[in-house]
């Protein structure tokens, strides 16, 4: 299971890590209960500050995607059907609305936006559990 990080990218490294893990969970490549590397291992691999990795794990934990237990490390959380963590169902609409607003402001027609969403969803769900 590999994750790619752009060290010179504008997006903070901790968000890139969190997003990467989120995508792998969404695709089902990281299964429920699967162990993740410790903060120290990941920081050593990337040569970054321990706090950077800890921030990524906090982000994932706050969204209910992983469970971190002291001494036992991090694991992918067991998900229930309903959204958990800090994002309730309504809160999930926020980022979606924001992304759609950007697309509309960019002048992209509605049909093309729908195609884009379908394409992304298909890629994301490829290999995911039904």
């Amino acid at each position, binding site marked *: *299971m*590999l*994750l*790619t*990080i*752009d*060290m*010179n990218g504008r997006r903070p490294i901790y968000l890139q890590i969190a997003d990467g*893990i989120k995508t*792998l969970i969404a695709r089902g490549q*990281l299964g429920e209960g699967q*162990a*993740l*590397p*410790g903060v*120290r*291992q*990941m*920081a*050593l*691999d*990337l*040569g*970054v*500050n*321990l*706090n950077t990795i800890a921030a990524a794990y906090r982000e994932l934990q706050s969204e209910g995607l992983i469970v971190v237990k002291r001494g036992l*490390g991090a694991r992918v959380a067991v998900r229930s059907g309903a959204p958990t963590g800090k994002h309730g169902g309504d809160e999930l609409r926020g980022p979606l609305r924001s992304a759609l607003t950007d697309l509309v402001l960019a002048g992209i027609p509605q049909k093309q936006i729908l195609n884009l969403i379908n394409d992304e969803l298909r890629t994301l769900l490829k290999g995911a559990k039904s």
Partner: protein
Amino acid sequence: MNILVIVGAIVGAALATLPRIIERWRSPVMRGPEFLFDVAVNPDFHNGAGNDILRRYRGRLFIPYLLEGLIFVALWLAGQWTIANILTAIAVIAIFTRFNYYAARIWAENQARRFERLEETRPASSLVFSLEPRTLLNYTNWHVEGGIILALAAAAMWLASLNPTSHDALMIRKLADNLIVTIYMQVGMLLIKRGIVHSGSAAPADNPEAYLAWRESLRRFSIGVCDVFRLMFALSPIFTIAFILGSARVQMAATAGFIAFMVIAVVYEWRSRFAYLRVARSTKPARLPLLPGAEKSRGPLGFWPALPVLLLKTTNGYALNLASAPVPIAGLYLAGFAVLWFWLVR
């Protein structure tokens, strides 16, 4: 002291050293004429300045072996020709050989960097890393661990069964001290093994699978060698007791056991080293981005509390990060060793 054991130790050490000499002799050019170690150069580099750099690098490799010969002669002349002294000398020289190799390699790479191909010097901006957790348990060979525990327990039980009135009490005490030091050294070697397991492993985004496979191959090979050394040190008390206190038949069996172990260890090292080299040879080296603190580093030491890495790649080699966790652990371990030594000789 059984002369067969001494010959076995020296021949074993020499045979174990041979593939390492071959590897280090060839490693600067193992990826072909377009590289000197990890530095990309023009193929004609080896006909000019590269030839001189290579010759001087290879000459430096033999410094530890010269020193090893001098130490053995000194031990012989001083009448200190014991298995414990020979094994200690081999261990010290093995560590020195490694540092000497790194120093020679860093020197050669720095010299070659003046002739580096510019198009190959850009460090990778995207890094790939594995999400597989690496724990000491994943890299534990239970046969080796069982062998270590068995060897140490057998030595302890043998010593416990001795009657001080029928044996030289001072000799028993020295053998017990040797066992305690060996157990302490086992802890140290386990810490080294843990360090190897946790050593960093990221790859450039253009060829991540092959690069990570090479890193994993290096990790497994280093752990294998570390385990062989752990087993060798764990066996040393039982062999020493057998050589000193055993009957003629026990001494014979210990000699045969020692030689058999050395042969197996050497064959194992040869096989695993060449298997690792096959992977290394086919992996293109990559330049990973320098970390923020490393750019300003001037000397071989630094203090970067924000970074967990022990060795930081800098613009002209490597710098030891004194703020990383292994440094205080190593300091405590060495202080503990000094206290133990003081307590034992008291």
